[in-house]
């Protein structure tokens, strides 16, 4: 395995790093944005079994704890902005040629971070180019009764990089879990299936889908979120990736 990972200590990053370690796809090095390791902030969230997803995670284990246990070299940078100069400098100093991105959401990476000789890969919870933007899995639950996830190589324009892997799920879960559990686990599962497909070598990834056009969605209104979840409660299970 020779890739790096960028994390911020949230549920998505916790799900990523715990499952990457568990499945043997251990990153060589990690950059953690933010410096908010708070051992006291335990949550009551219960991670139940989600159909079609083998992965699970302990939402009370911080990324720092997992990195220490797995003996992964990591560097903490006290910022939430991945475009900051200190972050760019750290990227330019790593030896790995590819990086899995799990930094703060909703931020578009700008130059010069994308031109440091490192390919950035990101799991986006939507099939592209149809579902770009935010909270896209709720929209696909309404329109198609399924959730898609795409691994893309990040580009300057939001969700417009080359798609290197995609996976579709039909999921029925506890309704409260979608933002904090289903979303992280859908992305995690897709990342792991992608890594399996390239034998743990992200740089072996090839473009699969033309991703220049498409629709950009924005944060879903609560009424649509309710309709999406209620609609999904009556669907079956299944999933496939390519």
């Amino acid at each position, binding site marked *: 395995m020779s890739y790096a990972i960028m994390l911020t200590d949230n549920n998505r990053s916790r799900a990523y790093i715990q499952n990457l370690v568990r499945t043997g796809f251990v990153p060589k090095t990690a950059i953690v944005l933010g410096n908010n390791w708070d051992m006291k902030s335990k949550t009551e969230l219960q991670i139940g079994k989600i159909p079609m997803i083998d992965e699970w995670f302990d939402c009370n284990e911080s990324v720092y704890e997992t990195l220490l246990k797995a003996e992964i070299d990591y560097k903490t940078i006290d910022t939430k902005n991945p475009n900051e100069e200190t972050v760019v400098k750290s990227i330019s100093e790593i030896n790995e040629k590819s990086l899995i991105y799990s930094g703060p959401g909703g931020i578009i990476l700008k130059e010069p971070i994308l031109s440091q000789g490192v390919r950035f890969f990101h799991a986006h919870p939507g099939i592209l180019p149809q579902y770009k933007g935010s909270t896209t899995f709720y929209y696909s639950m309404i329109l198609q009764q399924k959730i898609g996830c795409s691994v893309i190589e990040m580009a300057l324009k939001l969700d417009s990089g080359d798609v290197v892997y995609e996976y579709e799920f039909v999921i029925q879960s506890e309704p409260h879990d979608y933002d904090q559990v289903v979303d992280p686990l859908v992305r995690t599962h897709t990342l792991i299936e992608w890594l399996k497909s390239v034998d743990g070598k992200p740089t072996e990834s090839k473009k699969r889908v033309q991703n220049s056009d498409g629709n*950009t969605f924005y944060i879903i*209104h*609560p009424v649509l979120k309710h309709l999406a979840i209620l609609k999904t409660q009556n669907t079956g299970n299944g999933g496939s990736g390519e």
Partner: protein
Amino acid sequence: MYYPYTNRDLIESPITYEFSQYCGIDGLKAYEADRENMLSFLATIKGGTFEQELPLQPDNNDIFYSEFTFRKLLQKLKSNRTDEEDYKLIELFIKKFEVSKKLWTMYTKNNYQKMGEDDNLQIYCLFANILGEYYDLVELPEKKMIAFNVLLKINDTLSAVKEKLLERQRLLAVSAIKKEKDIYSAILSEVNI
């Protein structure tokens, strides 16, 4: 339970809708009650006409006047005389509203930088009606959903300040809420509750 998205002036204090809480059927019932409440409130007020004359053509060609353009656009949509440029303009303002949760009275014409005021409710009423018409005209289900998402948010904005709506704005607001209700009912009918 109550509907928590209209309990303050959203123009003064916008909400992001991020990680909104799921409350099951009760959440939808609270939303329906909010909209019924708004319609009942607006029904108590008489007067006003829906079709109004266009404001005079503004004289500065470098400025995009939202009210003038939106009114003209709404007329075009209603008479099915729109072209690709009209759709691009609507999609641009969908993005503008989603990013800031506001619409301004004016924008620069070359790059649509905001100008003027953000609290002219006429602009919000007009754009809500534009979205209702756009929803019917666009074919892609994804585009319909994007438009409905904004319509819900603009109608939240209007519902939160319903007491401030002027006479000429009330019928536009009623029309926008009724359109939203129709779309909501159609989607709801596909959900086996």
